[in-house]
Every structure is written in structure tokens, then in C-alpha cells.
């Protein structure tokens, strides 16, 4: 294995008494697409801000490109791109002016900024909006400007904090497609998300975080195979009766989870599990068989749902 692009050992971030990141070990290889999956408050953003060299490491060791953020923050930041959780665009300025002033932060000559702005706006399919102000653009377009802007210094590593949160499904797919192309060009992607579908779409490898700790690591497929069954049967009973009805399906499949709104039965064959439930006389209001997802992995590992 070549030297990792990011390497963290027993990394800790504390704010006063609050421990946001509680001793995590992470290695990200060049060209890989790596995700931090977890609910809000799991410590994902704090980790990203340490990797982005804006938030100092409290304890432990962190190396990016083999450099130390405490000493070489400037050099590291010059080689990474950052897509923050909330857009930081100047709404009153045009798309291309936003690109230009950002490029100047990296000390790129104006001619280079202009050239790259042209290429990058084509890449995010906003070439026709170069002169438009930011304000009237849709959420998905603003997000694409932010991504174009984060690429102005031709970064080797792109950090994306919740890249598609708050976007409609269509806008999310457009964004995923662009990020996938970046990955194909060899840019290393590191992202945080609390969407399992996003993690499954984009990540070669991910860690599941909960309360500042890493609770599992692997590819999406590995995690599902290791921590869940192939299929899941979802049963809905009349509101408020899930707990009392759960005994009816006891022993079906490998195990079950009772959630406030439904009962999940983990089984290799979901249809067979459903047939057995019917045979026992259990009559749920509705039933659904689906593949296991990272959501199930998270539920299994933490006993909680990803999205509240």
C-alpha cells in the first residue's frame, strides 16, 4: 500500500468538556473515495475541520500528504478543496466573480483563475450562468458553484461535508454524477453524510461514526454482509401496537428490531419470512421486502436510526 493521503491515529477533538471526536484511527488512500457516515453530532464535521487544517487537533496524530497540520497547515490547505456544509458564496456577486476571488485566495494569477473558471463551470454544467448573480440560483446550482469553486486550485484531495443535504432528489443525482467523474479523474474524495444512499453511491470505503467514535469500517457491501442479512422484511402494525404484536413474529428470520413506526425482520429470504408471518396468522397493515442497507447496519451497531 502506498503512503496514505490521510492518516489519523487516536485523533481527539474536545471543545471544553465536550468530546466531539474520541480517539479515531483513519487511513485514506490516494484516489479512493472515503466516507464518514453517521447521524448529526457524531463528530463527522469536527473530523473534517481537523483534516481541512482549520481546527487544531486536541490530541493524537494527524498527517495529510505526510504533513503535520499544526506546522504545515498552509501547504496542506493549498492542495485540498473544501465543500462546506453550508454554502459560503457571496450572493451579491456573479458566479465568475465568486470563482475569481476564491482563486486569488490561493494566489493564482487572474488569467489562470479565468481559464479554470471557464473549464470548471462547464464541468458543473453552469457555463451559461457565469454572469448571473448567486442569489437567484437554485440550491442545487449554488452547490455546484461551491464544488466548482473548491476545484479552482486543482486539489488532490476534496473534502465534502454533507454535500447534498437539503437538495431535491434530481439535484442530488446531478451532483453525484459530477463527483463520480472527479473520482474517475483521480481526485481523492472524502465526504461526510447521514444519507445511506449517498454513502452507497459514492464511497469505496467508509467508517460509521457514533458519538465521536468509529463503530465499523469497510466497503458498503462488506458492512452490510458483516452486520446485516441479505434482505429485510418491514411490517407495519396499527399505530402503537408494534411492541405487543412483535411476539407474533418471534423467531422468524435471524432477528428483529421494533421501531416506533414499524417492525423489521432480518432474514436471508424476506418473502419466506413474510409467508411464515402470514402462516402464523399475523396480519400487518402493510409489508415490504427490501435489500439490507447501511441504515440497517447503523441501526444494528448503535440501536438508533441515522435520520431522526
Amino acid at each position: 500500500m502506498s503512503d496514505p493521503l490521510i492518516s489519523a491515529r487516536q485523533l481527539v477533538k474536545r471543545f471544553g468538556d465536550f468530546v466531539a471526536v474520541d480517539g479515531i484511527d483513519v487511513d485514506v488512500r490516494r484516489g479512493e473515495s472515503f466516507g464518514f457516515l453517521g447521524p448529526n453530532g457524531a463528530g463527522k464535521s469536527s473530523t473534517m475541520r481537523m483534516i481541512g487544517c482549520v481546527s487544531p487537533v486536541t490530541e493524537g496524530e494527524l498527517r495529510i500528504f505526510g504533513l503535520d497540520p499544526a506546522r504545515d497547515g498552509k501547504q496542506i490547505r493549498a492542495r485540498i478543496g473544501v465543500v462546506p456544509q453550508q454554502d459560503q458564496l457571496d450572493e451579491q456577486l456573479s458566479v465568475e466573480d465568486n470563482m475569481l476571488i476564491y482563486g486569488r485566495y490561493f494566489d493564482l494569477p487572474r488569467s489562470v483563475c479565468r481559464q479554470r473558471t471557464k473549464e470548471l463551470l462547464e464541468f458543473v454544467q453552469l457555463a451559461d450562468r457565469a454572469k448571473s448573480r448567486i442569489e437567484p440560483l437554485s440550491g442545487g446550482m449554488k452547490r455546484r458553484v461551491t464544488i466548482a469553486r473548491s476545484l479552482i486550485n486543482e486539489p488532490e484531495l476534496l473534502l465534502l461535508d454533507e454535500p447534498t443535504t437539503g437538495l431535491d432528489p434530481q439535484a442530488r443525482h446531478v451532483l453525484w454524477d459530477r463527483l463520480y467523474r472527479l473520482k474517475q479523474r483521480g481526485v481523492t474524495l472524502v465526504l461526510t453524510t447521514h444519507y445511506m444512499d449517498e454513502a452507497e453511491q459514492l464511497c469505496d470505503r467508509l467508517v460509521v461514526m457514533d458519538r465521536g467514535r468509529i463503530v465499523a469500517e469497510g466497503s458498503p457491501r462488506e458492512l452490510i454482509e458483516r452486520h446485516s442479512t441479505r434482505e429485510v422484511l418491514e411490517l407495519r402494525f396499527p399505530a402503537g401496537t408494534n411492541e405487543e404484536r412483535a411476539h407474533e413474529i418471534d423467531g422468524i428470520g435471524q432477528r428483529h428490531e421494533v421501531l416506533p413506526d414499524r417492525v423489521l425482520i432480518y432474514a436471508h429470504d424476506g418473502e419466506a419470512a413474510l409467508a411464515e408471518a402470514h402462516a402464523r396468522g399475523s396480519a400487518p397493515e402493510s409489508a415490504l421486502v427490501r435489500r439490507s442497507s447501511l441504515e440497517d447496519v447503523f441501526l444494528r451497531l448503535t440501536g438508533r436510526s441515522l435520520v431522526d
Partner: protein
Amino acid sequence: MSTPAAVRVWESHWTLYRAIWKSNMAGAFVQPLLYLLGMGVGVGALVNRNTGSSDLLGGLSYFEFLAPAMLATTAMMIGTQESLWPVMGGFKWQRTFLAQAASPLSPGEITSGLLLWQLTRALIAVGGVACVLVLFDGTRSWGLLAAVPFGALTGGAFAAPLTAWAATRERESSFPSILRFGIVPLFLFGGAFYPISELPGWMQPIARVTPLWHGVELCRNVVHGTLGWADAAGHVAVLAAYVVVGTVLARLAFARRLAE
């Protein structure tokens, strides 16, 4: 060839200003002009009729006394206006400072670029008032050329400490109080409208330590050719001290906040 980081930060503020300068103009020019006409000409007619007032005003008509002080008060207003809400916005609303901090720029460079910009804004505004003063016989003077940088320095003496303070605030709720209990009293009692020797004894030392009085003295005397070197050096030193201390504190406040 590389450009100093603070200048590149300054460029971003300049770019934004070029996009919105028209809406800024009214406040910057019209307000001092209104005071000049309303107070300088209107109240001045009353004051000038009062025998003995001219001695108190150093032999000047009231208009001549008041008009150059408007260079300093305008700088104070701009320096304040450019440091309170825009600083909060840079952290919380537009989040410009956060975007800058993700680039190779250091918190110190981000702060210095902002302060450089605030000085520029004061320079532009004071320059505008100076252009108006050129129109009047009583204030048409080569001294205006020196008064403009003196005015900008006065703006910086407000902008730098207020930027430091604003960067430590989580909410903007206290900002109107700064205007109400800080800036407006200075405007009224800082020596712009009458000599501070007219203030009650206990208020005079207070007026003397505030940046506005030093700025007013510099601008007024240099326009009328009555500024001595020793006085000039003293006033500039006080204003520069405000800028330097404010800058140091602002850099610390930015470094702390951006590392959160």
C-alpha cells in the same frame, strides 16, 4: 509574481464593493452634506450673530469650524459601519471568513486584509466629503489633501477595535447599543459641533481620549493651516495606537474564532 496575502483578501472586499457601491453612496455623501447645510449654514447663521463666538471658534465662522470636522465624523461612521455587521456576517451569514480560512490564508492575513479594506472605505468616504468641501471658499485648502489620510486613520481607529470586539460576539444584538451609547454621543460631544472646552469639566478628559476628538482636531487644523507639528504628531500617535492595538486584538479574535 505573488501578491501579498492581505492585498488578495482586500481584492475580494473591493470586488464586492464594486457590485454594491451605488446603494452605499447615499449614506456616505448625503448624510455629511445634510449636516453641513443644516448645521453649518442654518445653525451657523445664529452662532455667527453671537458676538464673541468667533473668538471661541478660533476666529472661524461656524461653517468653517464645523465643515472640516465632518471629515472625521464621516470616517468614524464608516469605520463603525464596516466593522460591526460585516464582521458578524463574515462569520455567520455570508461566512466569507470561513471560506477564506479553508484556503491557504491564515487568520492573521484574513484580518489584515479586512482592516486594509476598512481603511480604504474610510478613505473613499472622506475623499468624497473633501470633494464637497472644495466647493466652499471657507474650506478650499491644500490642507484637505492631508485631511483625507487623517480622516482615514480616524476611521481605522474605530474599525480595528470594533472589529476585534465584533469578532468575539455570538449575536449582533448588542450592536445597536454601540451606536446609541458610543458613536452618537461621540458625534455630539466629541468636538465636532463646538469646542470641547464648552463641555462640563468632567467630560473634557473623556472627550480627549476618544479617537474622534483627535481626528477632528487634525482635520480642522490642517484645513485651516493651524496644525502644529507637535500637535499633529500627538494626535496621529493616539489614533495609530488605536489602530495598532485594535489590529492585534482583532487578529487574536479571528484566530480564536476561526479555529472553533
